[in-house]
């Protein structure tokens, strides 16, 4: 059956992810699936090799007692082995879940315990140590049967009997081919779209993370819609896999769209080389969270200050000229508004934008995507001026990825575009968005109560987001329902809007708005160490560490001016009357941010209690 599946996503939608992989291996086995940079050389993996490796791993897992319905976890940076493990677990009928490599061990222990995971694949010694710590501490990990390490460097003397290297496991799979090969093939064949394929732990900006169970249908539907709407094929799509695969967005845009389009994925050498690798590969598609796009933009703006006066002048002139073109282009739905705009853009492209785009590695991008949180319109416009179309997407873990996306024709700034096909939406009386359809998840793993809260009657998913729609049905997200502030004067405030305006400043890295139940608004601000550092140097203000900068009086004046500028753009009740510069940088290790760099408001409000007291007084 699989050999006769035609190309196009409609025929793939009734298949499981391992079935699609098998289909790729059978129809285009010699085509390139992965590129991975190892010691400076790009190593290639074909679709046939991808399938064979995942299958061998599945056989080995089966021989070690992994059964349908079990769970396998991966704690690693993005490497091909991540995908082999993901697909291998699914081949046997199990589910795969990812753990952020930055998660400290107590969080890892919580996830492995809560999900009753049986095997965990670790990228290196660091991740393995965390699992070992987690099994030895507190109540341990009673369900864990095996730890598999990809890069076993430095672990020769480890005596744990549960420990195994990834390559040994592959050899085991080869030895058991005769015994279990057909069993695994049968399990692949028997897989149903409504089986749970992956479990994604939500980042948990509130409380402990919850494991969302996503089926093959959820994942395939969400990814296939993006592929169809954006017109992605193996020829028009390629991607650098760099955002954590534990997150639903990268899983959808890498693992799933890779399978659905048959395109090529390149793995960045390491986190530190993403920028260089991006430049080398120049992918055709690029997915970024707001933080990534912001960093790219700030990088350019910032580097321009060190450029020669002529370069700076050229850049500034081109950006100013390009602005109008981009704004008209966005209003026009993504296409140039007129022939003269097209000609003018081409001139700017030759003068400046071509090399700038090349430098960023975005020169071949046909479709950039931005999702995960609201992004400031200024940043988005920057990329449109350069001529990189960046489409806003909206979706959540519980919908297997994208539910709304901008597309040619619907590109209004600040919206997340139209609902994708196959889904229904409605808005609750309080403005909360509800979604229903084939990509809505099955519920949270071992958490009936939370599942009940998320899934309303009739299969409607509560997104927790307050939304509005433009006249042509484009989605505008107002804010998280639980983040809306109500001042003691009874005024509803949307924090993200003001926070993003603050973060538009190159000097502000993070801003947290306070004011719920209080009589005025205030903000906790984390300054950007690099930009404020350079500013201090130019002004001749001596400093050493982040802390000395944060406590410097002139820096406070600088930020005061930035805050005043933002205040001028908002109504009086929305003005920030007081602010505090945080004396330490927010960090995942300290629990102040999630692994995806979202701030955890509750924890920050506890942790920085003394700062808040200086703003509102003891009574606050």
């Amino acid at each position, binding site marked *: 059956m699989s050999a006769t599946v035609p190309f196009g996503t409609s025929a793939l939608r009734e298949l499981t992810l391992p079935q699609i992989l098998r289909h790729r291996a059978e129809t285009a086995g010699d085509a390139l699936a992965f590129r991975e940079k190892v010691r400076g050389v790009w190593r290639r993996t074909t679709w046939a090799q991808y399938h064979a490796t995942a299958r061998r791993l599945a056989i080995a897992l089966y021989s070690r007692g992994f059964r349908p319905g079990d769970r396998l976890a991966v704690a690693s940076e993005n490497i091909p082995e991540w995908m082999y493990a993901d697909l291998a677990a699914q081949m046997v009928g199990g589910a795969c879940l990812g753990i952020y490599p930055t998660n400290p061990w107590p969080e890892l222990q919580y996830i492995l315990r809560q999900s009753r995971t049986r095997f965990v694949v670790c990228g*290196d*010694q*660091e991740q393995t*140590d965390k699992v070992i710590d987690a099994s030895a501490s507190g109540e341990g990990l009673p369900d864990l049967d095996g730890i598999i390490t990809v890069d076993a*460097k*430095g672990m020769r*003397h480890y005596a744990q009997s549960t420990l195994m290297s990834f390559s040994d496991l592959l050899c085991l799979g080869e030895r058991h081919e005769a015994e279990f090969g057909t069993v695994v093939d049968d399990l692949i064949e028997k897989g149903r779209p409504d089986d749970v394929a992956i479990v994604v732990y939500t980042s948990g900006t509130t409380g402990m993370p919850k494991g969302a169970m996503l089926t093959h249908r959820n994942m395939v539907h969400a990814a296939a819609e993006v592929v169809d709407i954006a017109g992605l094929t193996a020829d028009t799509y390629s991607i650098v896999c760099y955002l954590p695969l534990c997150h639903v967005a990268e899983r959808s845009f890498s693992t799933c769209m890779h399978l659905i389009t048959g395109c090529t994925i390149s793995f960045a050498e390491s986190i530190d080389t993403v920028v260089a690798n991006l430049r080398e590969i120049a992918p055709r598609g690029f997915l970024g969270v707001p933080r990534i796009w912001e960093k790219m933009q700030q990088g350019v703006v910032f580097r321009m200050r060190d450029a020669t006066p002529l370069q700076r002048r050229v850049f500034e002139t081109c950006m100013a000229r390009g602005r109008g073109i981009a704004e008209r282009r966005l209003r026009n739905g993504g296409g140039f508004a007129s022939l003269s705009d097209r000609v003018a853009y081409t001139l700017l492209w030759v003068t400046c934008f071509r090399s700038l785009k090349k430098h960023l590695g975005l020169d071949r991008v046909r479709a950039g995507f931005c999702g995960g949180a609201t992004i400031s319109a200024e940043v988005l416009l920057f990329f449109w001026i350069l001529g990189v179309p960046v489409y806003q997407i909206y979706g959540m873990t519980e919908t297997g990825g994208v539910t709304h996306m901008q597309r040619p024709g619907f590109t209004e700034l600040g919206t997340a575009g139209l609902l994708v096909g196959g889904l229904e939406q409605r808005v609750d009386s309080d403005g909360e968005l509800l979604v229903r359809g084939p990509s809505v998840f099955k519920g949270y793993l071992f958490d009936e109560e939370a599942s009940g809260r998320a899934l309303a009657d009739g299969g409607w998913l509560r997104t927790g987001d307050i939304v509005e729609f433009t006249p042509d049905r484009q989605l505008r997200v107002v804010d998280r329902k639980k983040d809306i502030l109500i001042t003691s004067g009874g005024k509803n405030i949307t924090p993200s809007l003001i926070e993003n305006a603050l973060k538009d400043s190159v000097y502000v890295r993070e801003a947290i708005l306070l004011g719920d139940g209080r009589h005025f608004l205030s903000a906790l601000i984390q300054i950007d160490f690099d930009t404020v*550092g350079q500013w*201090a*140097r130019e002004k*001749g*203000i*001596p*400093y*050493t*560490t982040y*802390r000395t900068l944060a406590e410097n009086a002139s820096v406070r004046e600088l930020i005061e001016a930035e805050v005043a500028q933002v205040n001028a753009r908002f109504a009086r009740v929305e003005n920030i009357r007081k602010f505090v510069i945080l004396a*330490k940088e927010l*960090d995942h*290790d300290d629990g102040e941010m999630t692994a995806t760099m979202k701030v955890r408001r509750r924890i920050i409000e506890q942790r920085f209690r003394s700062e808040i007291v200086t703003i509102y007084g003891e009574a606050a």
Partner: protein
Amino acid sequence: MSALLALSNVQVLYDHTIEAVRDVSLEIEEGRIVALLGSNGAGKSTILKAISGILGQEDGEIVGGSIAFAGHDLRRASPASIVARGLVQVPEGRALFATLTVEENLVMGGYGLSRADTETGLEEVYSLFPRVRERRGQISGYLSGGEQQMVAIGRAIMAKPRLLMLDEPSLGLAPQIIDSIFDTIVGLNGSRGLTVLLVEQNAQLALSVASRGYIIENGRIVLDGMAETLRTNPDVQEFYLGFGTSGTRKSMRDVKHYKRRKRWLS
């Protein structure tokens, strides 16, 4: 009390392209011993060379910031005038004039002094390091490492420093010799009120004699504070003092192939 030596946001480029240190600010008060710690290539020696005005030989250049010694700007000063002001460096690896005798080396340190001043200077060095007196007539290149270090410090003392900068004085020496050299340094600080900037890789040793410390990594100061505070900082303990996370001494067997993230929280 204002600082004897103050660096403010110093930035150094080598060959117009390679940024060796960036935004380095530090202050040394008169009469203190201050330690500058960091691993290989962090930029410690570059900072000393910037202060002494001898970056030019290596195609280095101070492109930003200021260096002030007792209120005078040193950025445009010649190395000789910097020494004349009382800021003297003992270079890494001793750098003696190997073919000259010990005494000739010392006399070179006091170049330009009157005969009488040279005599008192020599006498002072010999009383500090009796061993050097014994070796005064020998060719300095044939001395042991420890003796050479003593001569190098003695040569600097000849220039009558207000602030002595020592670049890794413990390098390649036996522990006993190191102890005696450090005793002398502490003695000079105590008896004559000599201000000392001590650059070291041996953090344990440096933090035991210094009152204040700066830690530099990749050309930037990542942490500074009083020596006692630094000694109890978990990052300093793990990365510089060789303690495990639980405060016990670490075994080489347990050294990991990955690095715990350095946080440098002050």
